[in-house]
């Protein structure tokens, strides 16, 4: 049986959560059937649960606050933001509202809301529809952030997000939607051994079968996971360099333990992100890894990220600025001191 697509699994998670949580509502632009959202992740929901799916005007700034108000009064809103690029419109509501209410109001309220949004490029959509802006959420206190990737239990991530009593930002990925949701079978995905941690935001650690040491630890999330895995395979095949890949989903709180565990075997950490370098998620990972894993580090943490700039529309330009397999292998080879 071929694995289901990631988009379908996220959709299944939404259906399951709607059935499980009577207080759950889905809202967003164009979420109604038969369209079911620009990426079809909400498909079938408005037919199955007509009273709990709300299509909205193009009013992102307010929609975050509307979700907050619903949540404060006991509903479980799941807000779809059509492109992750548009979370910037709601940034005041995120930083000065969603992030604050529970703590500022002395824990008199809770905010069980989910914001789902696709990030990422590689589809030629151009500068305003291709970004990976989760970096800006990384600095927001009191929220959770989960990055979905194609090796995670996507329906499970979705239901866990809805079940959470705190605000959860679920970062999805445009390219991922159409790809198969690969799950470990007998502790393996493809040629690689996999161990998966527990909790609502598990990490998967990939290693060469039977290897207990590694030349480097690649930390990836979201759309960089398949690229990390491809790079790891290329590094084995073409350079006999064996890496571990840690595919994290917990960005807030940052799930560092599996990274540190892998570091203890490799001595080298390379962080991968599709967002632009400066002020990115890799900075926080690097800062923590050098702090908490200092004794295991054999050399500085290396960050692989997009060039600091726009994401151009022309495919040739986009390919050049976004980190791809070649960027990753080059960075790893540089870090482990091997020749490219």
């Amino acid at each position, binding site marked *: 049986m071929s694995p289901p697509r990631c988009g379908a699994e996220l959709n299944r998670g939404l259906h399951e959560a709607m059935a499980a949580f009577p207080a759950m509502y889905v809202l967003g632009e164009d979420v109604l059937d038969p369209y079911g959202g620009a990426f079809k992740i909400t498909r079938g929901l408005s037919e199955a649960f007509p009273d709990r799916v709300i299509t909205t005007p193009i009013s992102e*700034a*307010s929609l975050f606050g509307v979700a907050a*108000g619903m949540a404060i*009064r006991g509903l479980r809103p799941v807000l779809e933001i059509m492109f992750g690029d548009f979370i910037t419109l709601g940034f005041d509501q995120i930083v*000065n509202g969603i992030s*604050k209410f529970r703590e500022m109001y002395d824990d*008199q*309220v809770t905010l069980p809301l989910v914001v789902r949004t696709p990030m990422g490029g590689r589809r030629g959509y151009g500068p305003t529809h291709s970004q990976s802006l989760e970096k800006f959420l990384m600095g927001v206190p009191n929220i959770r952030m989960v990055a979905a990737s194609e090796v995670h239990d996507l329906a499970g991530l979705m239901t866990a997000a809805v079940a959470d009593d705190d605000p959860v930002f679920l970062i999805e990925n445009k390219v991922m939607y159409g790809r198969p949701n690969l799950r470990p079978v007998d502790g393996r995905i493809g040629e690689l051994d996999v161990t998966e941690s527990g909790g609502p935001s598990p990490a998967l650690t990939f290693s060469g079968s039977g290897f207990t040491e590694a030349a480097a630890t690649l930390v990836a999330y979201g759309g960089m996971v398949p690229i990390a895995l491809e790079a790891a395979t290329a590094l084995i095949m073409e350079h006999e360099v064996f890496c571990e890949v840690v595919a994290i989903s917990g960005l807030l709180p940052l799930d560092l333990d599996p990274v540190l565990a892998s570091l203890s075997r490799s001595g080298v950490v390379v962080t991968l992100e599709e967002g632009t370098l400066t002020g990115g998620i890799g900075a926080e990972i690097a800062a923590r890894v050098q702090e908490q894993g200092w004794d295991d580090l054999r050399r500085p943490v290396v960050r692989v990220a997009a060039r600091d700039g726009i994401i151009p529309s022309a495919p040739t330009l986009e390919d050049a600025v976004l980190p791809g397999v070649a960027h990753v292998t080059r960075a790893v080879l540089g870090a482990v001191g091997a020749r490219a």
Partner: protein
Amino acid sequence: MTASGPEARYRGMYLIRRFEETLLDMFSQGLLVGTTHTCIGQEADAVGVIGHMRPGLDQVVSNHRCHGHYIAFTGDLAGLAAEVMGRSGGTCSGRGGSQHLCRDGFYTNGVQGSIVPLATGIALAERERGDGAITTVFIGDGTLGQGAVYECLNMASLWRLPLLFVVENNRYAQTTPVELAVAGTVPDRARAFGVDAAHVASTDVEEIHAVAGEMVEHVRSGRPAVLSIDTYRLRAHSKGDDVRDPAEVDARWATEPLAVAGARLDAARRAALEADADRELAEALAVAHASPVAVLDEALA
């Protein structure tokens, strides 16, 4: 406010007035730090509108200038005083301070306009709950500059939310006169989004109470509405920042809410109401003073 009628409303306004005057005194004595925005001169809005709210059911969302709304809705003088004083017994244990309050269906935030989407979501949740609750959100004239207000007027209209927008137009946003900041009129802005609107230019709590009653009924029937009130702020924007012509301000003291409503009361009765309110305030302040200074607990550490 459970008690109702002109006497209760006078007393309610008086309580707010004295509470805020006390705060300003404490600030000028250096007993308080941070900021505060008093509604002195605008008490009739809080008392007139909130008199129609059902405690334990309706929801009230307010802004930086929220003390009057808070007191009118919750009666919780001690909690508010302690909050402004940074005491652990404060409404939010000292976390929020003057502009960030929450209690029993009352919420404020210090970012202009930011609370309107929150109110819209609350109204949506209440509509879904189906127990007849309405939500009232207070904004000032200056806050009409924020786009979120119109996003929410639109959604409230489309979704038929039981949401009452109250615009307290006190003619200024901080130092900016309304003419430099607001084009057109408030009722027109509401109606442009298919939201019904009423307008009243008054500091008479009875007049405001009457118009508010009509709008509240309208909202309870399941349609949003805007109530636009022309009023005036008699003290500084926050503590001492006032660049208005003193003569302009002085002239407005003649029609301040306590003068208007108080003139209708028998003098002895008025004095008794005031004495009673003074006693309530003194007790509340004593409670607040007795509350320990807030300390960082584990939850915040």
